[in-house]
C-alpha cells in the first residue's frame, strides 16, 4: 500500500504538471502565430539581397524543413523541444541556446538590479510616508504619479545627458561593470517602483486604520514596530499579486532600456527576432519568459502564504 504524498510534494507535483502545460501552450501558440503571420521566412531572411536564387531558396527550405506539411513541422518542432533542443537561429546562424545563453546574463543583471532597487525604494517610501500628514503623502504620491507617467525612453536620455554626457560619472552605454549598469537600472526601476510604492502605502494605510492597529498600540507597541511588523505584512498581499504584472513589465521594459543604453541583452534579441521572423529564436524567448512567469508566480504564492496565515489551508 502506497502512502499518500506529503502535501508539499503534492503541491510541487501539481505545480510541475501545470508548468509543463503552460510551456507547451506557449510554444504551440508561438509556433502557430509565427506560421500565420504573412510573409515567408525565407523571403524575410533573404531580404532584398542581391543573390537570391532558386538554388539558394531551395537550400534554405531544405535545411529548415520549411516544405514539410505544417502538422509534420509541428510534430518535429515538439519532438525537438522535448529533448531540450531549441534549434538554430535563421538570422544569426547559431544555436538559439548559445544566443540566449550569451545575452541572458545582461538582461538578468538589469532586471534583477531594477527589481532590488524598486522593491527597496517602494518599501522605504511606503513605510516612511503611510499615514503621515497630508502634505507628506501628497508630495510622495505626486512624485510617484510623475514617475509612473514618465516615458522610460525619455528618462533614459535625460539621465544619460546629465550623468554621462555632462558630468561624465557613468559611461554612455554597454555592459561590463556596475557603472554601466547604474543608469539603466534606475531607468527601469523608477516607473515600476513608484507604482509599487503607491500600492504598498494604500495597503499600509488601510491596515493602520483597522482595529488591530489600535489594540497593538494600546499594548504599548511602538509605531515603527507596528508599521514594520504588522502593517507591512498586510500590505504585502495586494503588492505581491502585482508580481506577475511586474515580471512582464520588467521583461518588456528591458527592450526599451537596452535600446536606449545600447546594452546587449534579450530585449534587443527579441526585437530583431520578431521583425526578422527568426522563429527558433522567438520560440526560445517565449519559452524562457513563460518559465520566468511560472517561477515568479510560484514565488508570489509562497510569499502570500507567509504573509497571510489565513491563506494556508488546513492540512
Amino acid at each position, binding site marked *: 500500500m502506497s502512502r499518500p504524498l506529503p502535501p508539499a510534494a503534492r503541491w510541487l507535483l501539481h505545480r510541475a504538471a501545470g508548468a509543463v502545460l503552460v510551456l507547451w501552450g506557449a510554444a504551440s501558440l508561438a509556433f502557430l502565430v509565427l506560421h500565420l503571420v*504573412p510573409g515567408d521566412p525565407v523571403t524575410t531572411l533573404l531580404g532584398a539581397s*542581391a543573390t537570391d536564387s532558386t538554388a539558394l531558396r531551395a*537550400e534554405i527550405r531544405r535545411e529548415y524543413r520549411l516544405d514539410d506539411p505544417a502538422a509534420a513541422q509541428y510534430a518535429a518542432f515538439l519532438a525537438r523541444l522535448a529533448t531540450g533542443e531549441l534549434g538554430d537561429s535563421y538570422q544569426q546562424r547559431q544555436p538559439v541556446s548559445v544566443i540566449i545563453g550569451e545575452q541572458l546574463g545582461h538582461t538578468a543583471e538589469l532586471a534583477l538590479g531594477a527589481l532590488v532597487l524598486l522593491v527597496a525604494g517602494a518599501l522605504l517610501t511606503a513605510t516612511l510616508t503611510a499615514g503621515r500628514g497630508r502634505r507628506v503623502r501628497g508630495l510622495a504620491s505626486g512624485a510617484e504619479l510623475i514617475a509612473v507617467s514618465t516615458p522610460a525612453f525619455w528618462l533614459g536620455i535625460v539621465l544619460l545627458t546629465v550623468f554621462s554626457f555632462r558630468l561624465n560619472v557613468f559611461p*554612455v552605454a554597454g555592459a561590463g561593470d556596475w557603472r554601466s549598469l547604474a543608469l539603466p537600472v534606475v531607468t527601469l526601476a523608477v516607473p515600476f517602483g513608484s507604482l509599487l510604492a503607491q500600492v504598498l502605502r494604500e495597503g499600509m494605510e488601510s491596515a493602520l486604520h483597522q482595529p488591530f492597529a489600535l489594540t497593538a498600540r494600546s499594548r504599548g507597541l511602538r509605531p515603527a514596530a507596528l508599521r514594520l511588523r504588522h502593517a507591512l505584512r498586510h500590505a504585502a498581499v495586494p503588492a505581491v499579486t502585482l508580481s506577475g504584472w511586474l515580471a512582464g513589465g520588467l521583461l518588456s521594459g528591458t527592450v526599451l532600456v537596452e535600446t536606449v543604453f545600447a546594452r546587449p541583452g534579450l530585449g534587443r534579441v527579441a526585437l530583431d527576432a520578431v521583425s526578422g521572423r527568426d522563429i527558433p529564436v522567438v520560440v526560445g524567448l517565449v519559452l524562457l519568459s513563460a518559465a520566468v512567469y511560472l517561477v515568479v508566480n510560484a514565488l508570489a504564492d509562497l510569499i502570500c502564504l507567509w504573509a497571510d496565515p489565513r491563506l494556508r489551508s488546513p492540512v
Partner: protein
Amino acid sequence: MRGGTFTYAAAVGTSCLDPHTSPGDITAVVQRNVFDSLVHLDDRGRFHPWLATSWKISDDARSYTFELRDDVTFHDGTPFDAAAVKANLEHIRAPATKSLYAAALLGPYRDSEILGEHRIRIDFAEPSVPFLQAASTPYLGIASPVSLSRDKDRLCAGGKYSVGSGPFRSERYVKNDRAEFVRNADYRWSPKGAAHQGPPLVDRLVVRFLPEDSVRAGALTSGQVDAAAVPITSARAVRRDSSLKLTKRQAPGAAYALYLNTGRGPLRDERVRRALQRSVDVDALIRGVYRGEYERAWSPLSPATPGGYDDSIEGAIRHDPQGAAALLDRAGWTGRDGEGYRTKDGRRLSLRWPYIGALIRDQRDVLAEAVQAELRKNGIDLVREAVETGAYFERYGKGDYDVWDNAWVRADPAILAGFYLSAQRPAEGGQNVSGANDPQVDAWLRAGAAEKRPQARETSYAKVERWAVDHGTVLPLYVPVTAIGTGEKARGLTFDANAWPQFAGVWKTER
C-alpha cells in the same frame, strides 16, 4: 603617440559578421580590419596591389591571373597562398554559405586554377570587368582557409571565428554591444599607396554599436568614443563644436532614389512616370529636409562612383508642374474626385509605396511626406504603406508596389546592371525594381561589363543613366553621405572608395 585603444561608435549592428554571407555595410566596415583583399581601391578610384602584387586581365575579360604575395600569414599562422584564395571563392559560391551579397559580386564565376603556390587564375563564364572592384571589397576579403572549414557553422558569430590577415586580429564580438580587435604586430602587407603602412599604431580597436542617434552623438561630444557615425540631424551641431571634426564623404553606387514600377497600374504609362518626375521640386525638398548636408541626385548613379557618372545628366529632370499636368491630361487622368485627386474611368491616380518603419533612417520619412505633398498638388495620391518585414519582401518579389525606394553602396557603375538588366527581376533576387526591360539597355550594360577601356566603359553606363531618367523609371532624390565625427585626440582616420572609414592607421594624440 602609440598604443591605447581607439573606439568607434557605429549606428547599426548586424546579425552576421561573415562578409561572405552578410550584405550589410557595417559588416564591411567592421571586418575590413580583419580581412585583406587581393587589390585595394583608393578613394580616387585607382587600384593598388594588396594581397596580389600584380594581375593580368585577359582580352575577353573572362579570366584574371593574380600574382600573390608570398610573405603573408593569417592570424592563426596559416600561410596565405593560391589555395587560400581558391578556398575563399569556393566558400562564397557554396549554397551552404547562403551568401546574400558576396556571391552576386563574384558574378559569373566559373572556376579558379592554382597555377603555382602564389599564382592563381580566376575564370568567369562572361566578361567581368567589374570583378576587380568586387575583389577590392571586404565582401570578397580573404579568410584563413582553416577557419573556413573548421568553423564553417560559426563564421557569422564573428569574434575569434573571424580569422583573416588584416591589420587587426578579431578578438571578441558581443552582439548589440561591441566588437573588439587587437593590433596585428606582424602586419607588413598594407595596400600599396595606403596612407599608413605596417602594423597599427594603437593596441586595440573597439567598435561600439549605439543605435540611438542622440546617444551616439552624446558619446562623441563627451569624449567617450574617439569617432562616431554622425546622424545627419546632428551634423550641424558636430561641426559647430570646436573640439570635434566632421568629415563627410559622398557614397558611390546607387543614389537614394524612388524607382517607378513600369510593370503595373498607372505607371505603365511613361507619360504618368514623367509627370511624376516633374511634379516634385527635388532641389527645394533636399534643401529643406537636409539643410545643405546632402546634395540632390540627378541620376540613379551617385556622382562619387569612380569611372561611371556622367555629369551631363544634371538638369535632365526639371521641376515643371504645368508640364506634368499636361502630361497627365494627355494620359487621360482628367477627372477629379472629392479630395482633389485625379481620376480616370472613375479610378483614382493612386500609387502604393510600401516601407518598413524600423528601417527608416536619414529622415527619409520626412522626405517621403514632402514628396507626397508635392505629388498631391498635381492630383497624384502617393500612399505610403507601413508593412512588416516578411510582407515587405514578399511584395518586393511579387512586384506588388508602384514606388520602391533604394540606395546601394558600390564603387563601380556596374551597380546599374543590378538595377536595370532585364534579367535582374526581383522575383529572382535581382534589383530591377522598375521592371525595365529593353534589349538596348541590356546591351549597354553587357558592354559595360566587357569593356576594358575606361572611357568607352563610362560612355556605355552613361547611356543607361540617361535612358533610366528619360523613360521615367526613376526619381533620383539625394546622394547618400557618410558623415564621421572625430574627437580632439583622434588622428589618422581615412576613407576608402566606398566612403567607409578605415582604421588601419588611426592613433591618438595623448592617452
